[in-house]
């Protein structure tokens, strides 16, 4: 236990860094694919925090939640990338600045 307790602030720091970096990527990138990857980065950062807390508080629950987050992220990626293929097939350019209507 000494391992995770002394390293716990650093794990949290990395999680916060990855999360805010993902948010930054969502703000500054134009390609929706990269925006998706940045969202994945944010989900992974949350998973890291959950597993870090799980180890720190000596509780299994954090790992269960992290597992559920991974499952939900997989489903989210399937639908999200399906949407992107749809957007592409109706001839729109892949740029989040141009995709500002639900219906063209």
């Amino acid at each position, binding site marked *: *236990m000494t*391992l*995770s307790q002394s390293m*716990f*602030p*650093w*794990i*949290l*720091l*990395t999680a*916060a*860094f*990855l*999360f*805010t*970096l*993902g*948010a*930054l*990527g969502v*703000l*500054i*990138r*134009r*390609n929706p*694919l*990269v925006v*998706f*990857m940045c969202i*994945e*980065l944010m989900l*992974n950062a949350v*998973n*890291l925090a959950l*597993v*870090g807390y799980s*180890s720190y*508080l*000596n*509780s*299994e*629950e954090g*790992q*269960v939640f992290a*597992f559920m987050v*991974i*499952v*939900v*992220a*997989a489903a989210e*990626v*399937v*639908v999200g*990338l*399906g949407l*992107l*293929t*749809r957007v*592409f097939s109706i001839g729109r350019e*892949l740029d989040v600045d141009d995709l500002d209507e639900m219906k063209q």
Partner: protein
Amino acid sequence: MNVLLAVILILAAISALGVVFSSKTIYSALSLVLTVALLAAVFLVLNAQFLFVVQLIVYAGAVMVLFVFIIALLDPTAEDRPRLFDPRLILGVLAVAGLCTAVFIAARNDVTYDTACTTQAVTCMHGYTVGSLAATGDLSADPFHTFGFPENAVDRAGNVQTLANQIFHTYVLPFEITSLLLLVAAVGAVYLTRRVAVGPRRDPQAEERWRDELVEGGE
């Protein structure tokens, strides 16, 4: 061991920078693969063996492959420049620095959520002092004890069994709802990709020309 963890965390942070600031989509994707794999290694160090495997199989194995397929399907050579010199970038960098500093200081100083009501454990779940368990080791003082976590629950061997007990006993309903979520994802994706005209637009003449050039160059 702490050194190992520190190195993995630093590498993960660096490769995450690659995800956000790469000029090509495919580089972003490959950086994300590296980040995901490094986080899997962190899970292993933190004794979350099951999550380590799940992370590798689902994320590095399946989700990232899907990302690369989509890049190949849409535009393999796509380039995308980040909005540099944009007010949003400055705002974002400030947010990154601010939140990271706040979280780090809070974690270092064992910040409590609400110190005013630590005495009433039942009504004040948020009053639990984050650092107190680590500091005192007094399990009876913290409300989490009422959940009945055995000592060294996470460190115990058989991580898969203990997690499975949680998933299939305590969280049966979320588990069943997950199947609905996956069902919706499968149906949605099939619906969205029905008769999509994105397939390779074959141009027989261009292919012929390309092959001729290749063979001529070879002779």
